């Protein structure tokens, strides 16, 4: 077990929990989107920490590819969520 893996992995767990708490408790839709992104970053960190094999050793490329896919999916989901939020605000303003 590597110190770096444990340190970064445990921090990732804290980030996931922080993000989930923010997503559940924030009233503003935009901040909920930010919170879900923070939670996603925690998941990415968990994967990258597990992929790390120590200094001088090549890390496992499979989780890296997963995280790259995840980052792009996260940004498209964020864009769609923001467009939905914008439409929701527009509908509320019209009422």
């Amino acid at each position, binding site marked *: *077990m590597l110190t770096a893996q444990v340190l970064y992995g445990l921090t990732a767990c804290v980030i996931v929990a922080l993000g989930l708490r923010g997503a559940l408790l924030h*009233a*503003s839709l*935009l901040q909920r989107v930010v919170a879900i992104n923070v939670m996603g970053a925690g998941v990415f960190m968990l994967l990258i920490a597990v992929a790390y094999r120590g200094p001088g050793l090549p890390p496992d*490329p499979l989780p*890296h590819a997963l995280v*790259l896919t995840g980052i*792009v999916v996260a*940004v498209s989901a964020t864009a769609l969520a923001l467009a939905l939020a914008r439409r929701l605000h527009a509908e509320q303003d019209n009422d």
Partner: protein
Amino acid sequence: MNTTNLLVFDGLLLFSIVGLAWASLATTDERRSVILFMAFGLVLAVAWGRLLAPDVALAEAAIGAGLSGALLLAAVRKQSPGSSHTHANPDRNYSESGAKVVLQWLVTLLCAALAGTLAWALLHALSSAPHDTLPRAISDNLVASGVSNPVTAVLLNFRAYDTLLELAVLLTAVLGIFSLGQTTPGYQPAGPVFDGLVRWLVPVLILTAGYLLWVGAHAPGGAFQAGATLAAAGVVLRLTGRSRIGLPDGFVLRIIMAAGVGVFLLVGLTLLLLGRPFLGYPPAWAGALILLIETAAMLSIAATLLLAFVGGQPQSTAVNAAANRQREENSRC
């Protein structure tokens, strides 16, 4: 760098990551929250570099911090034209009555329990011997993949299905944005300093995108990082108040949006016709096919991200006039 120095560096890095995440979520000021989130993304990119994941670091800096931040900031601007600070509606905040406080504590406890469970699972997984069957399979077959960067090999050869579906997710998201409404109003014309900077920046960004696309075969980089860089060129052009930001009109735009999925599928189906498995490239052609798919994917990704920033379908003049009429009617009501 010796071990103690590295440990101090790790500690500082992780402290700032948790601190920025906390600060970004603790405030009720949306603009502050978004800016802290962007800082969080950039520090995170440093952490990916530290954990020897340069491909992910590039993507995080360009997409996670850069474009997500631009999208979120644009959303803050739309919600509050004129005011620089948007606070959440105070009577909807969960800090008022006793019941809300109890709920807040319950949620906090639940999240702490989740963190504990995750940590336990992680330590359990790390304490067993690492499974290196997959990494070994990747390094053994890297020669046949057509590229020498293992991350690109996984993304576009060994797990090409995942990437095909990821491009489909991007296309679906942009179609959803198209169907939700019109584009957001443009920006004021920029001052001479910013405008001059952008004149230099845009060609550099386009060149960098081309470089990242090409270099992805054997070093950190690839279609995603390149697409995000190309989209960033469009974003800075829009920020200077220009109406033309490099997006083509109508039909050509639709072709570019679908190019990533389309070329990917065409390659897969052609290989099927030639009697190979779906997306099972012949080793001699793998490098060229991956570059072809990545070029199409880069254009699609750039167009998608830029359209997401613009907030909808770019309007032709007729649609523009209709939108203006509607806006006038709305303001009259």
